[in-house]
């Protein structure tokens, strides 16, 4: 979730209780003021009546007295609430009444004057309108403020983030801008140090494997050249069997080293040139490349292709498919079969082979041993490429000695 969205949600969550408390407060406040004002009005009215009565000993013509109860006396004026049916809209309407007594010609009379009150439903409605209006105003100004804040205060942060996203291992170090905010400055500083360290490590690692590769392969080339020469001169040569072993071992060693070098390059993401690839073409090319080997072993190939377009480095796609097809040919049996199913979401390669005892998944491990003691580095390369692209790979072995490798591309 984006920082700004999170801020909105968080603020909105806190605004809700504030709104409720505000509503309640506002409601009682209005009600209190309404009572206060009505009581004040009634009190002044009472004082006017009393004054008039004192002067003229009667009530004015225009008086607003609602009731007059003779022979009842209240020591002090008393306020009361009452509901009176308003016939106009057939509704009970709240009124405030003031009972007070005056001495009229020796007898106490209780006068009642009344005034319309604000109804609670009216107050609630008013309160609600006020709060909603206020909240809208607050929300709008918050929106403006938060947006401004995100744009202004968080700008260096987003800039840093953007540079990090664009950062490439073999590219130059990103140049983070200095800001007036200390936290961001120290974040940028730490990131710079970290990235430099990571970049140095990466370059060192890359250089190391390249140099190792160069040295190793050059000396292996010498060994191979010399043994080759001796193999061609059996008269001068030491026992040919030993010579043969040296030759084969150096060949194997160089193959293994090449594979390790490739693995480390895949791991270092040195193949990073993704284009849209029609995997069908790659599979067809691989089958074409191995077709003679397939024919020699009389392997039956069955393929079911649907269009499958992936964004991949073309070199890696070729290595992936070649290794899979090669594996299916290499570990097959004479007159065996290979079934290749390609769909937009998965590639399944199934081949007949020798029964295998043990956990099939270990076949994908880097140092898995085959029946000849070979390390299963081809499949380790396949696995590494799958990991790089987030493909799911599984190795299934059925009872009929069918080896099945399934790669689910997923949507990434």
């Amino acid at each position: 979730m984006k920082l700004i969205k999170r801020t909105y949600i968080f603020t909105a969550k806190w605004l809700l209780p504030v709104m409720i408390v505000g509503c309640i407060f506002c409601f009682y406040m209005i009600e209190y003021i309404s009572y206060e004002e009505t009581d004040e009005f009634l009190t002044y009215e009472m004082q006017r009546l009393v004054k008039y009565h004192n002067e003229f000993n009667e009530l004015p013509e225009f008086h607003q007295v609602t009731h007059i109860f003779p022979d009842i006396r209240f020591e002090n004026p008393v306020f009361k609430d009452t509901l009176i049916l308003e016939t106009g809209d057939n509704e009970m309407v709240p009124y405030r009444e003031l009972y007070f007594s005056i001495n009229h010609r020796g007898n106490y009379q209780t006068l009642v004057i009344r005034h319309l009150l604000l109804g609670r439903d009216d107050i609630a409605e008013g309160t609600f309108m006020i709060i909603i209006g206020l909240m809208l105003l607050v929300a709008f100004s918050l929106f403006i403020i938060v947006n401004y804040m995100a744009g202004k205060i968080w700008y260096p942060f987003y800039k840093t983030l953007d540079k990090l996203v664009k950062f490439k291992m073999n590219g130059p170090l990103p140049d983070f801008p200095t800001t007036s905010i200390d936290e961001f400055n120290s974040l940028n500083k730490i990131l710079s140090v970290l990235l430099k360290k990571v970049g140095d490590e990466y370059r060192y690692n890359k250089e190391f494997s390249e140099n190792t590769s160069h040295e190793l392969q050059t000396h292996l080339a010498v060994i191979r050249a010399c043994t080759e020469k001796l193999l061609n001169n059996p008269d001068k040569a030491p026992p040919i069997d030993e010579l043969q072993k040296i030759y084969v071992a150096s060949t194997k060693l160089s193959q293994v080293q090449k594979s390790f070098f490739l693995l480390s390059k895949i791991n270092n993401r040195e193949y990073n040139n993704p284009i849209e690839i029609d995997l069908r073409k790659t599979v067809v090319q691989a089958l074409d490349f191995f077709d003679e080997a397939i024919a020699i072993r009389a392997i039956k190939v069955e393929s079911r292709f649907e269009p499958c377009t992936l964004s991949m480095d073309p070199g890696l796609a070729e290595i992936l498919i070649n290794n899979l097809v090669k594996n299916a040919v290499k570990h097959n049996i004479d007159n065996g079969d290979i079934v290749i199913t390609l769909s937009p979401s998965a590639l399944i390669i199934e081949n007949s082979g020798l029964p295998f005892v043990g956990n099939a998944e270990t076949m994908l491990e880097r140092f898995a041993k085959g029946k000849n003691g070979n390390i299963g580095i081809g499949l380790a390369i396949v696995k590494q490429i799958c990991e790089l692209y987030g493909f799911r790979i599984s190795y299934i072995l059925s009872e009929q000695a069918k080896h099945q490798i399934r790669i689910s591309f997923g949507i990434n």
Partner: protein
Amino acid sequence: MKLLIVEDNLKLLDAITETLVEEKFLCETSGNYLDAEGKIYLYRYDIMVVDINLPGGSGLDLLREVKAQNPETGIIVISARNSLDNKLEGFELGADDYITKPFDMAELVARIKSLIRRRNFRGTRVVSFGDISIDTTKRGVTANNQNIDLTKSEFDILLFFFSNPGRVLTRESIAEHIWGDNMDLADSFDFIYSHIKNIRKKITSNGCNDLIKAVYGIGYRLNIN
């Protein structure tokens, strides 16, 4: 045919030179960048075999120099890195072929001969041996003046033998020649044996002598006698 071989590992340089001299090439050698650069300015070579990693500079720069001095020179780049970038850069600069360390001498000889055939526009592109001749442009093979039909790998293997007459070609070397980095396919089954068997069958059925002899436990050899 004059060759310049530039390689900083002197043992490998010796091994390469010895092999190429045996093949009747005129060879000059150079163990570092500066020396090679001087030679390029002074002489003309038909083919330069150059390692990318050199003391004093990159083989790719030498490549540039050669192309500027004498564009006719054929160039084979040697690299231990097997890195695609170098390969692409090499081809862009005008390299004709690219070979990764370690390689068999038979492979290097085959590549040089193939390059000479491609460069030699006036000359013949037919390689003959005994009653068999290979037309490398048409990819056709005749035995006793009759066409024989070889598969792609069979053709490549036969041409590999013809480029290295008398030399023992190991099974590994043949596998690498036809499958490159995928040569480990040959680990599980004797594909090479099957290919050789088919080639022999096709040649002898046309009444030619079987020129390919097995060298027990090692590989095969094209018999020159």
